[in-house]
Structure formats: C-alpha cells, structure tokens
C-alpha cells in the first residue's frame, strides 16, 4: 500500500515533465513563427522569378528580381 503514493507521485512527475516539454516545444514553435515578418510592402509574386516572368509576359512590365542572402520574410534574414 505504501507503494501507491510513490507510484502516484512518479506518474504526476512524469505528466508534469511531459507537459513542461510540450509547453517548451510550443514556446519554441511560437518563437520560430514570430521570426516571420512581412517582406516589406511590395506585392512579391508568389511564384518567384518564373511567376514574375509569366506575369511580365502578360502585363508587358519588366521583371524586378531581388536576390538576397537569407530570407526577406524572417527577422534574422
């Protein structure tokens, strides 16, 4: 009978640990998600260079391609 409280404590500790890990993971994912930012106010073509070329063939406007190191839509780009 003395083992019951010990087993209960162990289970609770395990559950608390899992919950803590889960909340850490959620926090990490939230932090990663918050790293995304709007890449300026320009209406960038979602299809990249090829998409912009296709749009240019219709609109007659020239293509403007910005090449960067990193990502324009990240905080640390």
């Amino acid at each position, binding site marked *: 009978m003395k083992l019951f409280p010990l087993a209960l404590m162990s289970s609770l500790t395990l559950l608390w640990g899992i919950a803590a890990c889960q909340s850490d993971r959620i926090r990490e994912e939230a932090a990663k998600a918050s790293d995304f930012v709007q890449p300026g*106010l320009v209406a960038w073509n979602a299809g990249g260079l090829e998409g912009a070329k296709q749009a*240019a063939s219709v609109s007659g406007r020239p293509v403007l*391609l910005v*090449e960067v190191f990193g990502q324009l839509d990240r905080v640390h780009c």
Partner: protein
Amino acid sequence: MLFSNPELAAWMDANFECAWRSVGDVAVARIDFPDGSVMERTLGGNLITWVCQADGTILDVLPGVMDVRTYRHALQEALPPDAQEALPPDATEGWEGWDGWYCGTFPAPTLDFTFGWGEYLANEIEALRSSDPSLGSQADSKPIALDRLRPFPTRSVPLPIESFDVSVAKFEAIEDPIIRWVGVPKPETFEDPLAEDSWIADCLLHPQALALLALDPKISIEDLSPAIYRLVLHFDVRDPHLGLGRALLGRSDGFMQSEPSKP
C-alpha cells in the same frame, strides 16, 4: 527596410513584376554581454537587384545596398524608354540620382555606361589572354570564363590609355594623358553610412556590374549572379564562412576548423 517604404513599394508594384529569392544562408552573430543582454544580428547581407524582360534578357543589374532615393532613381533609369516616357511628369521629382552620374542602360549596356570599368575589364582580359595562349586572341571572339577574372579593385585605379585615347585626351586639353583614373571621384563626407553605401552601389558597383554584363549581354541571371557576388561584391557564395572567417578571427584560423584537429 527598403521595401517597407510605402511610396517605393507602390511604385515598384506599378512598374514591375516583382519577385525575390534567397541565394544562400546568412550568418547570424550573437553576442552575450556580461550584464545578460544579448545582441543578435545578421552579417554579410548583400543583395542584387535584377531588371529583366519576360524572356530573361537582363536589362540592368544593381548590386549592393541603396537608400530609397537612390534605389528608386536607379530603377527608374532601368525602365524601358517607353515606360519612362509614360511616367507622370512629377514622377521623377525628388528622385534625382547622384549629381547625374548615373546613366540608363536600355536597350543593351555598353562600355560607355561603365565609367571606365569596361575598359579596365578589357585590359584585364587582354592580359589574361597574353599570359595564357589557350584562351585565344580577342579576334577569336572566344569568351573568357568569368571565374578566371580577378575581383574589381575597391577604389578607382589608374588605367593606361591607348594612343587613340591619348589624342582624344589631348583634344580635351588634359595635361597628363598617359594614364587616367577609372571610376568617379568619391565625396569625402556623407550624411550617414547608408548614404555612403548608396554612393558606392550607384557609382562604383553598378558600373562594374554593367561592365561584366557588357561582356555577354545575353548571359542569364543564373550565370552572371555568382560572378557579380565574387567580382563586384567581393563575396564568394561558395565559401561556407561567407568570407567572414579571416575578417572576424584574423590569423586564428584554427578556430574556424569545422572538425577538431587530431592530437
């Protein structure tokens, strides 16, 4: 951030089909200060702006960082002539470039728009051909592989000029026609670091990039991009340390080894 300027963004949307892409990862530096504060920022965030036609023909290439005013002016000059003429009369007001140094490049870049960097490049290529007969002569029209070229110098350089140029120089009453300086004089002071970066991008890097483009106006963005990064921006995209290893750690190259050294 350049692309967060509402006026510039709206103007870009109205005149171009805009796209962006990443060409590699950027290095992030993190400094932990003794008081517990942390500073984190990116390093080496160079960018290149390309303007091309729907078939991929390059119209202009703008390496480096510019402020809004310079960037807008450079893009405006990159527009085809009919698009420039279609701009409202007041569209250009307040967007002048660096005292008129900038020249448009449409329909195809020529050496005239390179402020001497095209001639500098021609001299470099001629020297390469002289040192390596396998490259053939200029008459062979055999293109020089861009990876054989050395990066452009970061300052204006003296360039020997040919006899024809000497006569032209004399005609224009230049006292010493033996050499001339390639590039344009850099102002001694700037309002802020971004203004200096803008001047460098517009008056130094842009003409150098055009000189490379003039070697082969039909070259694709994919083929020219690595050369622009290496020769103009002095940034080797193949270097896993993004060119920062020696700059950050000086002669302590041992710290940069990716694998621990064996005893």
